[in-house]
């Protein structure tokens, strides 16, 4: 059976191939989440037992309310909400804190949705430059704040910084940046889209006022899903409830939170996140092993002459940017399939997820692969190199 229904194929690549796609690895569902989708796929399935006060995060059957409390504890914050993707978390915080013309400090590797969230409210992003290792430091952040202050006469309204970025998977000095934010009394949002759900995260210890995570990137959850968490100090502002009253009907919807648009993540996505949660809680404790696996793979990968790693070394994250200009790209230049020869060879070995046709700079992610799969993967790259006469030392 290749087609689920006409024109929609069965997606079986996770069962048939090793998938090294950089953004898909940690969003692969747990079996519990897959079961949740089977049972809760119908539209408003979470609303069977929605009673007063009629809000998603208050529902007790299934225990969505308890899940929210546990989630906040899990990330070391006071309150948490689930949202349709990390981007909606950025949007909720930015929309609550930033006004037209305000500056927001972001990383030079910030995700585009951070830009959009700022643009949406008429704010202006101010990027902190990277250091020579492609890392955002405390010092560069402080310098940027001073620059913004000099140029605009005002302090930025918010600092949004990635814990690990999407481009290199590098770790940024989140603790140092939080310290700078405190010194300037600027609220600080830590973008943990690539860390929350794969490694232990403690927002309080980090010094963050807001944490944003991604369900579909790092929490073994379907898209869209995400998390926004904050402290009691900020909760009333970001999770404020509506004050609006209808001028004709006099209707008001007091319990609904404005930034959450009332209820947030309904149906299968909500329950799948909950179903994955026990597994996610366990797996963050295995992060060290994940880091060992990527470093093992990279050691083997670098045995192929001409291969380079553009991310910081040794690896602290499974998402890694590599450069094969000096190896596989040389073959691509004369091969009739050009860069696709590399994809063909990987596919023959049941490996997918590389950027098809790319043989220069590209990204991979080994999160969740077993040791057997990691070794198989490393061997496959070396086999391809040998086949095309590239030296493997």
């Amino acid at each position, binding site marked *: 059976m290749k087609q689920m229904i006409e024109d929609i194929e069965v997606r079986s690549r996770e*069962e048939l191939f*090793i998938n090294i796609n950089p953004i898909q690895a940690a969003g692969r569902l747990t*079996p519990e989440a897959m079961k949740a989708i*089977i*049972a809760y796929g119908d539209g408003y399935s979470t609303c069977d037992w929605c*009673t007063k006060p009629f809000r998603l995060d208050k529902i007790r059957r299934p225990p969505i309310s308890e899940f929210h409390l546990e989630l906040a504890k899990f990330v070391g914050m006071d309150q948490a909400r689930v949202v349709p993707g990390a981007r909606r978390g950025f949007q909720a915080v930015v929309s609550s804190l930033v006004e037209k013309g305000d500056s927001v400090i972001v990383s030079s590797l910030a995700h585009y949705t951070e830009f959009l969230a700022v643009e949406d409210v008429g704010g202006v992003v101010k990027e902190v430059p990277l250091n020579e290792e492609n890392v955002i430091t405390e010092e560069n952040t402080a310098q940027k704040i001073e620059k913004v202050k000099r140029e605009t006469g005002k302090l930025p309204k918010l600092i949004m910084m990635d814990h690990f970025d999407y481009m290199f998977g590098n770790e940024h000095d989140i603790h140092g940046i939080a310290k700078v934010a405190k010194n300037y009394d600027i609220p600080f949002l830590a973008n943990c889209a690539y860390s929350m759900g794969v490694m232990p995260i403690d927002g309080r210890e980090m010094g963050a006022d807001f944490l944003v995570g991604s369900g579909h990137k790092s929490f073994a959850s379907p898209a869209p899903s995400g998390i926004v968490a904050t402290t009691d100090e900020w909760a009333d502002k970001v999770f404020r409830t509506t004050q609006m009253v209808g001028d004709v009907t006099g209707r008001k919807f007091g319990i609904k939170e404005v930034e959450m648009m009332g209820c947030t993540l309904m149906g299968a996505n909500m329950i799948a996140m909950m179903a994955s949660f026990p597994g996610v809680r366990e797996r963050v404790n295995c992060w060290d092993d994940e880091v060992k696996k990527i470093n093992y793979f990279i050691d083997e990968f670098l045995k192929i002459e001409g291969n380079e790693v553009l991310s910081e070394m040794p690896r602290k994250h499974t998402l890694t940017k590599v450069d094969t200009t000096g190896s596989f790209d040389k073959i691509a230049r004369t091969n009739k399939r050009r860069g696709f020869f590399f994809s063909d060879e990987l596919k023959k070995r*049941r490996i997918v997820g590389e950027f098809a046709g790319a043989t220069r700079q590209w990204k991979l992610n080994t999160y969740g692969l077993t040791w057997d799969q990691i070794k198989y993967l490393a061997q496959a790259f070396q086999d391809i190199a040998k086949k095309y006469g590239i030296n493997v030392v």
Partner: protein
Amino acid sequence: MAEWLRRWAADPLYVGSIPTPGSNVLKRSNLCLVITEVGGIMTEKAVEETFAALFALTDLRQIFRDTKPTYQFNSEQREKIKQIIEKLRQSLDVIEKELIK
């Protein structure tokens, strides 16, 4: 009570409003009986076993994911596959018995 009646009218599977896990356990057999008496087409058991079979297949799917692309199963995985297949057979037997009498 009004809330309970409103929900019962909207959803005949509604058996209570107290969201305590297991609070409807005692009522489930009655519920099954009601459905059988009223509809007589399909019992709750067949539906339960359909889900159980789908969930067992999901566990099998996970084994594929854990062992791809060589599918070299260790003894624990072999044992689990046997259990899954056995569970599937049991569920299908129940479904067959309930639906094609």
